[in-house]
């Protein structure tokens, strides 16, 4: 061990680090490293597949929900999508955009099966009922050329 003198100070240092606020794990709009952060946060399995215009990082949660993060050639997560019996952690998936989403006024006239939030940059679609949810969120300015919203599912 090259620096044995650090062995004992390391323990309180580690404890102090754990007490610090977690770094912002912004995903939507974040870089390609954030799917790994989300995978760790959600204790899930991660699978990466390459499509023509982007990469898809798919996070499979143990209780059956799947979250997908769409990464542009520039390395930006430009969209996320989800499907399953329970919604995934949307604060984690939407990152810095989560507060914009939850503060937008509801527009589905008292029904709870759908929400469509359309903001200048952020669009969120959420659908479904108990035991079967799906949705997606994307950043308009970050969508790669030639990618349609319908692909994000």
């Amino acid at each position, binding site marked *: 061990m090259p620096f044995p003198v650090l062995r004992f100070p390391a323990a309180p240092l580690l404890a102090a680090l754990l007490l610090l606020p977690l770094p912002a794990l912004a995903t939507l709009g974040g870089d390609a490293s954030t799917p790994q952060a989300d995978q760790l946060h959600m204790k899930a399995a991660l699978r990466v597949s390459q499509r023509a215009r982007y990469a898809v990082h798919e996070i499979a949660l143990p209780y059956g929900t799947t979250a997908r993060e769409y990464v542009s050639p520039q390395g930006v997560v430009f969209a996320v999508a989800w499907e399953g019996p*329970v919604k995934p952690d949307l604060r984690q998936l939407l990152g810095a955009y989560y507060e914009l989403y939850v503060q937008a006024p509801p527009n589905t006239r008292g029904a709870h099966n759908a929400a469509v939030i359309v903001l200048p940059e952020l669009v969120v679609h*959420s659908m479904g009922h*108990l035991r079967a949810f*799906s949705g997606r969120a994307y950043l308009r300015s970050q969508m790669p050329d030639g990618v349609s919203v319908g692909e994000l599912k």
Partner: protein
Amino acid sequence: MTAPYLNRSARLAVGAVCALLFVLLLAACGGDGGSASTSSTTLQNVQLITVDAGPANNDSNVGFISVTVCAPGTGNCQTIDHIAVDTGSSGLRLIASVLSPSLGLTQQTGASGQPLVECTQFADGFVWGPVKLADLTIAGEQAKSLPIQVIGDPAFPNVPGDCSSSGPNEDSISVFGANGIIGVGPFQPDCGTVCANFVVPGAYYLCPASGCSNTTVAVTSQVQNPVGLFAIDNNGVVILMNSVAAAGQNTVNGSLIFGIGTQTNNGLGNARVLPVATDTGYLTTIYNNTAYPHSFVDSGSSAFFLPSGILLACPSQYSPYLCPPSTVTLAATLQGGGGGSSAFTFDVANAQSLFTSAPNAAAYSGLGAENNDAQSFDFGLPFFYGRTVYTAIENKSTPGGIGPYVAF
């Protein structure tokens, strides 16, 4: 125990009370506005549904009933109106602010006596609050010690982070658009085996004074579809709604009838039985020779939700609704598991025209909206107008087979 002895005058008094109750029941149930010719004499299974703008005056195509809840085993009861009828979920959920502080419902607890509290997810957000036991009465039906949810209870003010991460908080009447919701869908417990087998974030919690932690919950301790716990008429529901004029109406009535094939007023008749997927409740829509396997029939949805691209979307201020230039009649077939299918047509009108020409209406028969799930048609309350729709509960026997299924 032997039957209690009654002298002649007591028997006469009981007879008179029974006759009076019979007349009162007929009077109470006769005005339900159902359009079918139900020639029933046993109408204790019928509850009036009314579509109106709701307690916050912001709803369209939401059907409401009244329910009576009592502290278990007591006569301490309260009747609450404007409870939304939802065949897309299971369980009764009441907004805490409409409950009398003296009602005294019983807190549901975990094995070690800690309060059980739930985060219930909807597509548009979540509600948070304790699971409590209540004796429920609707029309002449009763469910004893029914696990229900009390939404926004000030006794549990701190929403856990993994619950508040599931979207907007809907713990108020103005946001929720109702005093409560009654899930009478095809499933008996709300979350089911997923919450019994996994510690699911944003679902059930044990909340001692020190704070809340995620927990698994046995299916029988979860919030339950009340219909399945009724003593009779407990295999499902029939929703029978009157027709709605194309221009929209300020209100429309219908009937929530308990049981399928259990009384003279809830037979299946010629309805086609469509078994739904036992995990998701999904059916398959066939439209234009394409299959949409994430489809469902849901009284808690406010419109016909169609995949994008079939009809023109409205300008963004009317998003997510559909604005075809003129009313369009679409033909579709719904298929269930095992081969059952039913073909039908439905009309979708220009939503902007509907909203601007009838701004005070609460019932719009031709309201369509965009569905972000490209594999899904969601047939909401407009589908129910002028129809009789049956929803059978999982594992329950009916004359049309064992649930879960939808029939119409």
